[in-house]
């Protein structure tokens, strides 16, 4: 009997919610109206944490980088201006939780300890630390005993040594050995080809305020259309060059 009473409450609730959903011009909505505010004020507030070549932000120049380029395009598509704000990723993500910013970019990757506190887009691009060779289609099988050149300061040395590789550090790895290790887009820029030896995977994301699902979906749709792999690699190489 109790169950029937609840059924009488449940059905109308369901109908009301479905009607509300149909009435929304956008579904899902932003509980804190982020996207609407952006469109009304003609400004999108974007936080940038320096992380070349994804985000290059300094006091001396205009922001640039692959992610900056993508977000600029997004703002153009929305028809709004941008207010860039620099800072550390921690500080910027903190500001997101207070709904003081609309998007944060900075070479952020998933999984991320902040995922309980802010919203993250689906990964729009996946990159790897790879071992590359000048020949396409190299299935090395293992790195045991092979010489691999790396640029200094990449933090790849432990991973490579664990796989039995002999390391050679050089500013221009492509010139000193038959195999080099670096980011997947870097090696493509050198004209080399990634081998089957992938050392680490990175899934790149942007951050949005928690629960702002309308804004999130809009950004994700944009990224799906305009941030295909080839385009992102191009943007990264452009940013690297400058």
């Amino acid at each position, binding site marked *: 009997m109790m*169950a029937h009473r*609840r059924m009488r409450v*449940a059905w109308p*609730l*369901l109908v009301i*919610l*479905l009607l*509300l*959903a149909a009435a*929304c011009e956008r*579904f*899902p*909505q*932003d*509980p*804190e109206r982020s996207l609407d505010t952006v469109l009304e004020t003609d400004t999108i507030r974007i936080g940038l944490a320096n992380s070349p070549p994804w985000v290059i932000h300094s006091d001396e120049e205009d922001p640039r980088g692959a992610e900056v380029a993508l977000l600029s395009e997004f703002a153009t598509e929305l028809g709004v201006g941008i207010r860039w704000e620099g800072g550390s990723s921690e500080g910027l993500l903190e500001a997101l939780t207070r709904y003081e910013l609309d998007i944060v970019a900075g070479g952020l990757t998933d999984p991320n300890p902040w995922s309980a506190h*802010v*919203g*993250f*887009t*689906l990964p729009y691009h996946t990159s790897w630390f790879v071992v590359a060779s000048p020949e396409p289609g190299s299935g090395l099988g293992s790195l045991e005993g092979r010489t691999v050149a790396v640029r200094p300061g990449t933090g790849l040395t432990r991973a490579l040594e664990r796989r039995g590789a002999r390391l050679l550090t050089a500013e221009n790895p492509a010139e000193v050995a038959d195999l080099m290790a670096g980011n997947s887009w870097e090696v493509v820029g050198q004209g080399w080809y990634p081998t089957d030896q992938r050392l680490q995977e990175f899934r790149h994301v942007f951050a*949005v*305020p*928690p*629960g*702002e*699902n309308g804004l*999130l*979906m809009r950004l*994700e*749709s944009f990224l*799906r259309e305009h941030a295909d792999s080839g385009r992102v690699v191009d943007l990264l190489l452009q940013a690297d060059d400058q």
Partner: protein
Amino acid sequence: MRTREPFELPEDKQEKLRRAVRLEWITIGFLISITVVMFLTMGASQAMKTAWIEDVLSLIPPIAFLIAMRLRDREPDERYPYGHRRVTLLSFLAASVAVLVLGLYMLWDAGISLGSRHHPTLGHMDVFGYQIWSGWVMIAALTYSMIPPFILGRMKLPIAEEVHEQTLHADADMNKADWMTAGSAILGILGVGVGFWWADSAAAAFIALEVTRDGVTNARSAMRNLMDHRPTEIGSDKPLGIVEKVRGYARELPDVRDAECRFRVEGHVFSGELFVVLTDQPEVARRVEEIRKEALAIDWRIHDIVVMPVESLER
């Protein structure tokens, strides 16, 4: 030691029980599939997480039932002279307490979520190459989770009443009420979509309340049974009238001056004592055995009656 005679279920009841066992296996199969589907689609929804835990918990009653079905037909032996009819109740009580505690934990969790104003983030989900709002995927999973338990619950309920099986009844009841859990979660997710960030946590709290209530109800009924409660109808508190029937039968007998009895529930069967004041007669023992046999036949659920000739029924 004189152990009890083993209990024999009437043939038609045995058939029903076998059907119940089959249904419980099917229930377990569906519940596992539901658990997997929900786990894959749960995402950031608190309500879905709570509903998932509830679905995992609903695996306990059927498993306990199937195990008990194997154990309780063991004949009474030296160590268990009264038989094993109560084994179902033990697992049932343990399961109910576990459910209760988990329900309380989930309630607390949902409370924290609401208190900290947690806004669930639900973006796109990648489904076989297509990107759709994760809320729709969750709602689809929840809709699936509603249907098999509801149907199975409705099929098991009448059987539980016919074989007087309380644990089966509680399990079937929980299955039937599953639509409320899934329904609440769906309302929660739709609420978030419409912009009510609190809808998800509120739904989670509601589900947790239901789960706790279930735990309390089942724990109480298991406790009553384990404490030798008088026989009641399945799923309610109404006494069955077994005492009246047996007493009535005995008092009708020509050579019985007065009679009184008491009964208790033991798992799914009853047992009790019948006190008779007999007229003076030479073969009391034989008469008492006759009375016992006839009293046992009054209701198929009566497992054992000890007939005790007494001088008077005054205390």
